């Protein structure tokens, strides 16, 4: 059942400061609307519960990709198309470009934003596993100030985030220190294009000879929120990949992942399938590290 659009209010404040002032004045009353690729679907199917919306899609100050020595800073209003077209991101953060490339179709990538993908907080979203693997931080702004939080601490539960009602996600900061790292990402969906993931895994690892000196793993659809896989990471850190140890390393990593995975049965897949395929993806990554 489609919503009655006359029951919804949408305004476009002239500046970021005006948006923050409105959020501060009536915290919790307004919902931010950027590219619309999520909220407009909810509107179309009669599931949009928020009736006062603030458009931030026109705010150029949220749409940027800045590069400094240590990080790439991506404005929350940056579209997936912007990300795919960025030479800096393609070169330094290939998993970011890859995940943007399979977030919806070209038409959706032209509108959908990185900030929206994060704040919508779907456990199946495409870019969060990458941001977890890369150890991103988020800059949150409000009328009363700015704070930076590790992305790994942003998702608190199903569709629950650390964002306060008066706050707006301003910048996603991603370290660009992965030159010597092995990087992996794979999404398993119903078809190649435009599918919502049944399971996805992003991974980065640094090797010291055949020892895993650093590793970070992020997964989609493995829990009620985008999940960093700390137990699997702990099982892999400092382990050796030589012929004598590789099978034991793989077994320990799969056991670690199984211990922290909390997938669900839903319309797209089953918990059993998700847990099994997540383990398979992890094993594929580990074995790919052996040269």
């Amino acid at each position, binding site marked *: 059942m*489609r919503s009655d*659009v*006359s029951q*919804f*209010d*949408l*305004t*476009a404040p002239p500046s970021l400061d005006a948006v923050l002032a409105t959020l501060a004045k009536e915290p919790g009353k307004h919902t931010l*609307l950027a*590219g*619309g*690729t999520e909220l*407009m*679907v909810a*509107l*179309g*199917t009669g599931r949009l519960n928020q009736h006062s*919306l603030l*458009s931030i*899609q*026109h705010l150029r100050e949220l749409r940027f990709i800045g590069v400094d020595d240590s990080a790439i800073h991506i404005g929350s209003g940056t579209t997936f*198309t912007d990300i795919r077209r960025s030479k800096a991101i393609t070169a330094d953060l290939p998993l970011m470009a890859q995940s943007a490339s399979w977030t*919806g*179709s*070209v*038409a*959706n990538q*032209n*509108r959908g934003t990185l900030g929206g993908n994060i704040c919508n907080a779907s456990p199946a979203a495409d870019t969060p596993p990458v941001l977890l693997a890369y150890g991103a931080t988020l800059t949150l702004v409000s009328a009363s100030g700015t704070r930076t939080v590790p992305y790994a601490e942003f998702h608190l539960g199903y569709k629950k985030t650390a964002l306060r009602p008066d706050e707006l996600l301003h910048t996603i900061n991603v370290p660009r220190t992965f030159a010597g790292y092995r990087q992996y990402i794979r999404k398993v969906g119903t078809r*190649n*294009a*435009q599918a919502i993931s049944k399971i996805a895994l992003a991974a980065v690892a640094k090797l010291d000879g055949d020892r895993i000196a650093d590793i970070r793993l992020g997964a989609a659809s493995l829990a009620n929120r985008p999940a960093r896989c700390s137990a699997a990471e702990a099982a892999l850190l400092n382990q050796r990949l030589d012929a004598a140890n590789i099978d034991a390393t793989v077994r320990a990593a799969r056991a670690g992942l199984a211990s922290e995975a909390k997938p669900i049965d839903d319309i797209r897949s089953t918990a059993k399938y998700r847990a099994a395929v997540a383990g398979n993806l992890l094993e594929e990554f580990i074995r790919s590290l052996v040269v």
Partner: protein
Amino acid sequence: MSVIQFSVNGKRESIDVPPMKRLLDVLREDLHLTGTKEGCGEGECGACAILFDGELVNSCLVPALQANGARLCTIEGVSTEGHLHPIQQCFLEKGGAQCGICTPGMILATHHLLDKYPNPTMAQIQEGLAGNLCRCTGYMRIFESVQQAAQQANELTAKS
């Protein structure tokens, strides 16, 4: 209600509509531009695709207010003075259009694709049209239509 001004197919428009009204409905109901179709209404099928400041978008996911100041192109703006655009002609000749519901979106997605990649590979064609569903053609005739349109455009460029 909000007064929204934009240009569509080169013509300036000013309308008073609910700000959350879908741009798709503004085009079809307020401006009677019914060439733009509704398929899924969820951004999955591409039947409602238009060009928004030169970029392909699904008009079912754009609230009217966000079109304020935009330059829009719908399927009605693709042909000129009664002459089909070469992309349309190629879809006609190669059987890329059958029932026609997906065709306006397919034509605009192709337009956008060829702007970016004048010589698209098959993989680029498939990716560029992945957001446009067709239940008639099985896609091969559509891919052939796009290839022929690219070839013709390149031959024209080479001549001029």
